[in-house]
């Protein structure tokens, strides 16, 4: 059971501790800087923070015994002379880390291994706790990669990375937009997965093309890895075969649109979502912030609202801003309007930690 949260915000990294029965902000690191993502690596005890300094670029910092140190930032290889590659807008595609959008630990049997997904679509792996990074060239050089498009940003990006707990060489990633990709040889080769999803933003010929899918978030059940959940731009999808095929869940109230999804670590049929009205109205339905929970694999959903603002709430919870701890009992979420809530009863009730934080980008139990 985790008693600490890392909260990445537009103006710093907040550490939130459980004190008695309450959760309180214990300290702030990188105050005033844009912390886009953080990782607490439970294998090593190290913490990592991805910063975006705007003018000065993206940087990675790693915790030390008494503070933080800057370590290597994933960097793209030299672009071949004469190569012309444009983004979907006709502008030269930058071979440069524009944003770190996924940062996860490798398997329990791989100490020091980290995976990092970036905009404009490059995947990186570290074998030395982030001291250095290797570009996963096999994925970047896959001809299909050039069909990836911007979704959550102008450029395509890798936002979800799931390392199979049974075999650390099996890794699934999700791209906005570009669907789901899977390797079974630690990144040497990749195949497209994620059949059965539906994209409404492309012509009918492409609607069911797995590469056209705008996955917002991909989650894998740690004790039953065959079960994967997707919050997608066009709805909620569930897989029972490790993400190869998905089934859409259409009877979802109050809405099937949103960004994050988390799955219970031991109950593959139990998952949580944070609904918004729809893509062109990214606010909670009726101004009421709620969490949707299913306990039966998506047959039914329960709307959870106790402790959450139920009047004029316009919070958006980003894809990395809903978290679950290893027990499956504690959840936490942060919003674009600076709200932070924790639940200790699987979402039945929520306690507000703060409603005046900077915009929250990511939440993780340490």
């Amino acid at each position, binding site marked *: 059971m985790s008693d600490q949260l890392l909260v990445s915000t537009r103006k710093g990294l907040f550490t939130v501790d459980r004190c008695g029965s309450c959760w309180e902000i214990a300290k702030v690191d990188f105050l005033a800087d844009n912390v886009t993502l953080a990782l607490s690596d439970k294998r090593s005890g190290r913490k990592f923070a991805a910063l975006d*300094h*705007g*003018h*000065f*670029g993206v940087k990675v910092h790693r915790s030390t015994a008494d503070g933080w140190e800057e370590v290597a930032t994933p960097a793209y290889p*030299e672009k071949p002379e004469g190569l012309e590659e444009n983004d979907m807008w006709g502008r030269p595609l*930058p*071979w*440069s*880390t524009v944003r770190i959008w996924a940062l996860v630990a490798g398997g329990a049997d791989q100490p020091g291994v980290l995976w990092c997904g970036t905009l404009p679509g490059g995947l990186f792996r570290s074998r030395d706790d982030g001291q250095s990074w290797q570009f996963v060239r096999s994925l970047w050089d896959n001809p299909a990669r050039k069909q990836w498009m911007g979704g959550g940003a102008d450029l395509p990006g890798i936002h979800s990375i799931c390392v199979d707990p049974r075999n650390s060489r099996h890794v699934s990633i999700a791209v906005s937009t570009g669907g789901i990709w899977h390797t079974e040889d630690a990144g040497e080769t990749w195949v497209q997965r994620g059949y059965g999803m539906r994209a409404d933003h492309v012509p009918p010929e492409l609607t069911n093309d797995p590469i056209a899918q705008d996955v917002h978030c991909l989650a894998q059940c740690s004790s039953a890895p065959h079960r994967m959940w997707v919050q997608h731009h066009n709805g909620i999808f569930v897989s029972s075969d490790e993400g190869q095929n998905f089934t859409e869940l259409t009877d979802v109230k109050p809405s099937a649109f949103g960004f994050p999804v988390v799955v219970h670590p031991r109950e593959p049929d139990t998952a949580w979502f944070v609904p918004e009205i729809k893509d062109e109205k990214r606010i909670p339905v009726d101004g009421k912030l709620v969490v949707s929970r299913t306990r039966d694999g998506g047959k039914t959903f329960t709307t959870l609202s106790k402790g959450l603002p139920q009047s004029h709430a316009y919070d958006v919870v980003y894809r990395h801003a809903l978290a679950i701890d290893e027990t499956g009992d504690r959840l936490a979420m942060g919003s674009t309007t600076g709200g932070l809530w924790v639940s200790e009863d699987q979402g039945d009730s929520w306690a507000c930690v703060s409603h005046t934080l900077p915009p929250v980008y990511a939440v993780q139990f340490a």
Partner: protein
Amino acid sequence: MARVVFTPNIQRHVACPEAEAAGATVREVLDGVFAANPQARSYVLDDQGALRRHMTIFINGVMISDRKGLGDAVGETCTIYVFQALSGG
């Protein structure tokens, strides 16, 4: 030797004291500066070695034109200013 002056705003993140380095182009001078201060390099240049999008460089008060190749000529007594643009937030 050209003199190189960095924006005060960068100093909060990485120490970039005023420096001198030899070179006939901006690239050559900056390569010399970053050889002695490697951590500063990625704060000014992107992964391809081009000037970051919202950074600017002036030679004696004139903005450079070659942001990608950094091939603008530098004289022995020039001062190179590495600044941030107001664009970019």
